């Protein structure tokens, strides 16, 4: 196992606090937990792409970064009034 896989494994531990935040508190707190989990997931995919040494896998992290941004905006918009 090289240093990239070790870093990706270490970042997996960071998803646990995000999950706990998603389970507690008000709707906005949960949304913040989800946004942070999206960022951490993007970093994990970035590290795994480098660990597997395939340039095409980086596209996955790029897609997740863009989609979690769009998803967060939609959630924030609906949390303003309707949920």
């Amino acid at each position, binding site marked *: 196992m090289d240093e990239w896989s070790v*870093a990706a494994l270490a970042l997996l531990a*960071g998803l646990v606090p995000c999950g706990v935040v998603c389970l507690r508190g008000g709707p906005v*707190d949960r949304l*913040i937990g989800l946004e942070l989990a999206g960022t951490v997931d993007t970093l994990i995919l970035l590290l795994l792409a480098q660990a597997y040494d395939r340039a095409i896998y980086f596209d996955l992290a790029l897609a997740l970064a863009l989609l979690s941004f769009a998803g*967060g905006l939609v959630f924030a918009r609906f949390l303003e009034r309707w949920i």
Partner: protein
Amino acid sequence: MSPRELAVGALLVVGVVVTLLSCLGVLVMRDAYDRLHYTTPAAVVAPVAIAAAVVLEERLSAAGIKAVLIALVLVLTNPVLGHATARAARIRELGQWTIRDEEREGGSPR
């Protein structure tokens, strides 16, 4: 161990430690506004450090350029997302997100 490997390792450690600390910070804070502060280091410092590590390892190949692009996307979108979330929190709480009269000069915040 060459200086380049050492730099890659150091950058990876910085990225991972900053991300884990900001996850802990989000968990520990009580308020949504307080929590929101801790999403920023994970989306600014960590991607830049990790992308720099990838570029050091791969040079500016396809992988290196994509890593830089991902870091750029995260750095640019995080402030927008933070603003939208804080705005949603304020509208839920107060009905409007702009500054209210009692929050102007001399008024108590929030």
